[in-house]
């Protein structure tokens, strides 16, 4: 018998965790001599109070959507992919190569090819850790972390060397041609008569992200492959019994995971910067871990968590802009959210389970 209703597990626990994180964040803000109510006000207004704010919130959310899905898929096979950061960097390289070196008549074709290129490069970056785990038992957490550093160093070299246009001063590629410019939400919504901020970076990739959520959901719960991935995640001996090859599943899952992480680049590289810059991922690969944890590895949960973290990012930036609260405190707040929703999950879950059980007993 279930210990508590599903809605409590999916909705109530994250909500309470979030509330606790908010309360403690408020205390911290109070401690440094600022007004927490005012701070919250600023964050909400800054992130959700205008289409400009929304545009940024959704832009960040799109990044987290892809990296969150990447971590979530791997989680289903009990693989902890910490390498979303490196895979997303390589995805950026894939996008840059597709956009710079192939001629594109229309952005839609370019987006298709760039998505493919991003996924391919991201998947390739996940392949080596996957094969090392599957064949040699090298722990995927260790190898994917190391691959993040290798990816960063590799892109450093590319961006100050081969990919930098001759004579340019900053370490980045040339600007992508105008033909591959992705429509922003402003451009998409204008024909529908909805006015949306012109300056915000949210673009069509957000819709690709939603599509990715649906596809991942179908993959995990509707296909034979998803069935095998989950089975392998639950019990390797059982998977072997059923004739599911652990090597194959590990590699395939990591390729999908790496591909999803790589696809983030269509948002930040193609949609926003329109060229590949140094450190383009800005830690989104790591945020993806928190997003997947909070979203319980379910695509819909990942979607909600990505929006929440998008809000924290954008709201935090506003906070730093308008108050004396240092930017670092935003990281503290984000850390608290991760701590409560991820690591301290049982702190909320156990008392709640006991409460539900007591309630049930009284009714019985």
């Amino acid at each position: 018998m279930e210990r508590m209703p599903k809605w409590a597990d999916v909705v109530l626990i994250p909500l309470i965790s979030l509330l606790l994180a908010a309360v403690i964040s408020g205390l911290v803000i109070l401690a440094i001599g600022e007004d927490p109510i005012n701070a919250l006000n600023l964050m909400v207004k800054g992130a959700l109070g205008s289409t400009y704010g929304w545009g940024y919130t959704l832009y960040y959310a799109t990044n987290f959507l892809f990296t969150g899905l990447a971590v979530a898929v791997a989680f289903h096979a009990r693989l902890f992919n910490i390498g979303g950061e490196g895979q997303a960097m390589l995805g950026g390289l894939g996008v840059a190569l597709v956009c710079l070196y192939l001629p594109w008549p229309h952005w839609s074709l370019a987006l298709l090819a760039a998505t493919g290129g991003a996924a391919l490069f991201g998947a390739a970056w996940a392949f080596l850790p996957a094969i090392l785990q599957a064949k040699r038992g090298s722990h995927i957490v260790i190898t994917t972390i190391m691959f993040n550093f290798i990816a960063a160093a590799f892109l450093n070299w590319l961006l100050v060397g081969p990919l930098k246009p001759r004579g340019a001063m900053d370490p980045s590629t040339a600007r992508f041609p105008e033909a591959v410019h992705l429509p922003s939400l402003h451009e998409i919504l204008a024909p529908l008569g909805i006015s949306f901020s012109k300056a915000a970076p949210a673009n069509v990739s957000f819709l690709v992200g939603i599509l990715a959520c649906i596809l991942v959901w179908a993959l995990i719960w509707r296909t034979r492959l998803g069935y095998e991935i989950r089975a392998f995640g639950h019990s390797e001996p059982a998977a072997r019994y059923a004739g599911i090859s652990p090597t194959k599943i590990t590699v395939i899952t990591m390729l999908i995971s790496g591909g999803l992480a790589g696809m983030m680049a269509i948002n930040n590289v193609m949609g926003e910067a329109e060229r590949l810059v140094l450190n383009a991922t800005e830690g989104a690969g790591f945020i993806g871990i928190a997003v997947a944890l909070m979203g319980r590895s379910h695509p819909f949960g990942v979607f909600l968590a990505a929006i929440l973290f998008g809000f924290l990012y954008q709201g935090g930036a506003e906070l730093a802009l308008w108050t004396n609260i240092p930017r670092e405190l935003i990281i503290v707040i984000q850390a608290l959210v991760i701590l409560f929703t991820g690591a301290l999950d049982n702190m909320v879950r156990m008392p709640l389970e006991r409460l539900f059980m007591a309630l049930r007993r009284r009714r019985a």
Partner: protein
Amino acid sequence: MTGQNANGARQATAAPDPQVPAIELRGISKAFGPVQANKGISMRVMPGTIHGIIGENGAGKSTLMSILYGFYKADAGEIMISGRPTVIPDSQAAIAAGIGMVFQHFKLVENFTVLENIILGVEGGGLLRPSLAKARAALKSLAEEYELNVDPDAVIEDIGVGQQQRVEILKALYRQADILILDEPTGVLTPAEADHLFRILRNLRDEGKTIILITHKLREIMEITDTVSVMRRGEMTATVKTTETSPEHLAELMVGRKVLLRVEKTPATPGKPVLEVDNLRVVDAAGVERLRGVSLNIRAGEVLGLAGVAGNGQSELLEVLGGMMPAAGQVLLNGQPIPLTGPHADGQSRRTAGIAHVPEDRQRKGLIMDYTAWENSVFGYHRDPAIGRGPLMRNAAILEHAQQQMQRFDVRPPNPRLAAKSFSGGNQQKVVLAREIERGPDLLLIGQPTRGVDIGAIEFIHQQIIALRDAGKAILLVSVELDEIMALSDRIAVIFDGRIMGEVAADQASAQELGLMMAGVATGKAA
């Protein structure tokens, strides 16, 4: 628990008053969350008797003994040792009260000698030599008194399970135990070893010790106990004198309805050979040879029982045939060789070839415990084109089919949306069995079909196996329960140390002869 109190208890039993129970439980209750494991249990165990506790898995036997040994604290109730109310907060207190426990899984240090294991925890002083000498002397007298012979200087990992069990008993006796609790002690023993154990237990009883024997085997209860208590669903349903009861009556008390203990079957009519195994060899990851040239064959319409003490290679044989482990040698299925190494030596290929497999460990291998029953109903067959379209699975159709299957196989509750872990052992096994039998395999591999399965379900599972045989299928049955092997098989092969020791027709087999072969002694009929 103070030392004084413990001494008091011991003095009382040193000259046991036959009128005062050695152990008396009054109204013991224990709940784990919503599960009531023990409900108001009262029981009296008289000194100098062997008292059996019998019940199905999950009836609450182990919980009750864990309370007595201080592992769990009872929610309510009272424990009296030799007439004195006693609180047992931990195992130290239990030992001090004169209670010794022999667990199903031994708690011995593998690379210590017998003597070192005996004094572990009661070294008494900084230097080992005096206590070792003391233990050696004590061991000698115990060995003479109770037929408990073990070489004190042997290292545990070098001696057999039967001897290891004796070390556990010696440990308890060395700690002055007057009450000995044994939890399923014969599970790992050959019949001969079990007989020896029973002799030891009788000797101990005759010297005034009190013994509690927990088991689910009716035969053992009838053979050795003086009194027997039956537990069902956390309650003690009856306590009777063994001489005044019968196995049928006990089974009925355990299950709550009449149970058929014998397997009804007609003589087999074997057809063409289905499985031919020739010189099968397996070396495990540690470099140990697990199968050393196993050869056997099974015909259509017969059950070959593979008897043996656990760990002699039968698990490996099942896994090789089931495609979970590579091997060397040759295996023919319906005259065609099946691959033993490489990518096609996997579970999928085996199933396509017509081999179904009910694995020994259904919880770790046969099922995904977190998957629902309907998801489990296609586990291993999930690539079957019939259950989906391309990469997609037809979940609604699978669910509906699972529902019918559960009704046919009497899985309770017949709700395919429940996770496998929320079914009892017997019902889990029915889910596995239904899945494996349904597609009409040529060969069924079945390991420990009734381990952890309640008596009511055992009856059903045995009937299914015989029905499959009568439908002309070949069956390889592996079980550590000799009774089960003898009841179901048409031929019996015995495996010892990775080799087939011999083979006998089931109707000519005797437990003694099989027991000898299980212990590695080849008999006249050895193949």
